[in-house]
């Protein structure tokens, strides 16, 4: 039986179908989760997709933090379940304090959509273990508020503990230390701004590198099963 990845739909989620497609093409089984349900039973991992969860005009992800489903996701993440947040999902993870730092308005003040080269800085997370460290991947980045910021102390700690997961080759938004994605201490929770789910088919994406994200979590989960 293949792994079941729950994809949360907030009312303003936009990339939930795309995430489901990516999970499916990557060989796992997508399961739809609703923001107002406390139940996420039966899933082996959670994907928080891009979009504007509750009409994120105030601050992206600020309201989603208070959703039913996030309480459950938090508990599951604490218990070691793999959780990935992409774009708005990353913002939600930061706002929910599952990941450090914050994502603020791009330095150039515009929403910008472009294929973006990223370096995979560590394979020691549930969502990147299928990549060679240092591999370059191309995912579309598309956001207006994706500039990663945190205290210098927090940044140093992230660097020292190998928790910077993705770094921009050409920083598109002014993120501190070119950070595109980070992970939790245990490495099971990963957030990144660019969109792996839009890089899963040669026909529609700039690459198929996004499939590596799904391959990673599958490998992580199957290892867990062996153990």
């Amino acid at each position, binding site marked *: 039986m293949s792994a079941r990845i729950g994809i949360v739909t907030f*009312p*303003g989620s*936009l*990339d939930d*179908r*795309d995430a489901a*497609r990516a999970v499916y093409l990557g060989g796992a089984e997508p399961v739809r989760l609703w923001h*107002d349900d406390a139940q996420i039973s039966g899933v082996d991992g959670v994907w928080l997709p*891009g*979009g*504007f969860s*509750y*009409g994120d*005009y105030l601050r992206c992800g600020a309201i989603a933090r208070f959703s039913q489903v996030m309480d459950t996701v938090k508990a599951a993440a604490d218990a070691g379940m793999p959780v990935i947040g992409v774009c708005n999902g990353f913002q939600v993870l930061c706002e929910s304090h599952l990941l450090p730092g914050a994502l603020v308005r791009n330095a150039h*003040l*515009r*929403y*910008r*959509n*472009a294929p973006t080269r990223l370096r995979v800085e560590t394979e020691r997370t549930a969502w990147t273990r299928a990549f060679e460290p240092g591999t370059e991947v191309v995912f*579309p980045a*598309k956001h*207006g508020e994706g500039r990663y910021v945190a205290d210098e102390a927090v940044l140093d700690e992230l660097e020292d503990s190998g928790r910077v997961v993705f770094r921009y080759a050409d920083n598109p938004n002014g993120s501190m230390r070119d950070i595109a994605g980070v992970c939790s201490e245990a490495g099971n929770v990963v957030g990144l701004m660019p*969109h792996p*789910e*839009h890089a*899963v*088919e040669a*026909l*529609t*994406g700039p690459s198929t590198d996004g499939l590596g994200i799904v391959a990673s979590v599958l490998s992580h989960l199957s290892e867990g099963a062996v153990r």
Partner: protein
Amino acid sequence: MTRQPLNVAVDTVGVATATPDEKQPWAELGLKDDEYARIRDILGRRPTQAELAMYSIMWSEHCSYKSSRVHLRQFGQKNPKTPRLLAGIGENAGVVAIDENIAVTFKVESHNHPSFVEPKQGAATGVGGIIRDIIAMGARPIAVMDSLRFGDIDHPDTARVLPGVVDGVSHYGNCVGLPNIGGETVFDPCYQGNPLVNALAVGVMPRARLQSMQASGTGNVVILLGAKTGRDGIGGVSVLASATFSEDGDEDSRPSVQVGDPFEEKLLIEVCLELFDTGLVVGVQDLGGAGLTCALSETAAAGDGGMHVDLELVPLRAKGMEPHDILASESQERMLLIVDPANVENVLARAQRWGLLATAIGEVTDSGRLVIDYHGQTVVDVPPASLADEGPVYERPFTEPNDLALIAVDRAETLPRPTTDDEIRQTVLDMAASPNLCDKTWITEQYDSSVFGNTVLGTPHDAGVLRLDERSGIGIALSLDGNSRFARLDPYVGAQLNLAEAYRNVALTGATPIAVSDCLNFGSPEDPHVMWQFERAVTGIADGCQKMGIPVTGGNVSFYNQTGREAIHPTPVIGVLGVIDDVAKRIPLGLGRTGDTIALIGTTREEFSGSEWAWATHRHLGGVPPLVDLDHEMKLADLLASLAGNEQIAAAHDLSEGGLSQALVEAIAHSGMGAQILLPEGADPFTYLFSESTGRVMVVIPRGQEQAVRASCEQRGLPITPLGVADANTDGLHLRDHFDIGREEILAAWKGRIAEKLGAQGAAG
């Protein structure tokens, strides 16, 4: 605290009957004396305030098409009969069948004046409005496109309007989650003070889900879904769309502006689709330009003819709104639903699950009247068809502008041209750097293009291509084009050239064009010269569509795009929809692989009148536009579909503004490859590079397919001329015997121009 106590004196039907001589401001509301008299005639009394507001709105140019209607009839009369057309003109948007199961609906609409007054919100609500038209047909919106026209790029007001408009299109489309798959950006001083913002939306549905806007079934409940009603744009779109701006832009006369809430619109999409899929609605109508007034009267008129509404039930956002305010409000993100009483609870529950307000405000009746009560007192009692269908129709006078003959002899073919290789080389670069031809990435990168994961081709391709079905690979192509300089020189030919370009752009992806939507942007219909341009353009499009066998399925007319007596160029913007059986076989932009043959299909004539070259280098507009040959366009489309189907073509690009020179620049820029070009013997390099003869495409033929492609062309009587080869080792453009331009030099000219002019602006908002 949404309901207010009834403490104001309301003008009821009873009051109106008792006070027949009460003076009413019909003229201020834009009604003519005879129109007011007709209203009194219809009602047998003076209208109440609310009724007067409703008639003035529904009988406005914007809602009644009173000046254009007599001409638009041609579309219906000349439209080719096709079994594909499931819903046509008169519906919220045209619907065409794609295969046995899938239908697609698309439409282009303008939001010009509001985008001048408040660029960001004007453009944003324009996108929101056209999306609701698509929802109302039963479809899930799947993409948008935008056709934008601004004044001179160096004019200070362009620095205000352009970034705002782009921000608005971007904000709304991105938040509601629709990929932007193309459009155009044009600069011309004629749009100074009258920018054009035309937006297209496209949606997809199972054929069986097609919705109706009928309020049928006596006893069925009328539900208002979505945002609360506020004072937004009261007298807005309608009055706005029919008012010429006074030359000294009086700030206080600026009408109130609508602000859009794309998150709310996203909820509307999800709730409506859920209701359609579960069969819970009988009828549906979006609330657009004329708010409740339009939605109530149109659904009632299209259905059983009667409706009763209790207006105080409408949830309000602002205090102190009177009945006519509520009826005229243009608050965004609202839809009207007609629901069987047995399903009401279910409908309300589903709306609530998504966090959307839904309120029963009335019911369908068999009275033949639209009756609106306010706190129990009747404020409206009218036959709904008198509002929706029986507005005034004008036969406005039209005459050919007297300057046209003079303009026709002022031919661009006689302008001084670059002659030496160095001059021509420089012209290639100058043209690439000109505002209309330069790279538009600064704009397009502000738009999401990949959400939904079905965008197979987006900008900067000639047309957007979307996959509709992952299993079968079937998809659609869409292009949105206009060339108002040609239309200014000859509106009939110009409109057909526009049509031909959009048609060709769709064909260039390998898709087969099947349907048209158009947005007609013109000056004041009260000017006989403008009216003549309008009549000629409509006739051109109708004749062209008849000839090419593709129906006009809907569109939009925007008049009064003028400041004082200065009208914009006649600007028909045409959207063509095509179908492609397997999106994997689409033809991309670029130069294929090293060794592939670059060839030109079509005939290059000495045609410069109305061209980008004449404009960019001489600020010249005169002469007669290039020849249009629709037969040829149809053969070309047939050829391209066949080459794509047989995978005999590696890449292709339209030759339009800027001619072959610009096509090469773009192909080189996008592919990262170089091109070695050898012009045919005896060809004049300048003419060959810059002529804008239409019906031409540049194709890239994979090695080994040259013979087959040549045969396919000959079989269809299409002239094909080999031009050279694609080569990864050639740096940029090598024009044998003439000059070289390196890739970096090409990019330096072509890229970054918009940012240079506007990048620093508009950041404060």
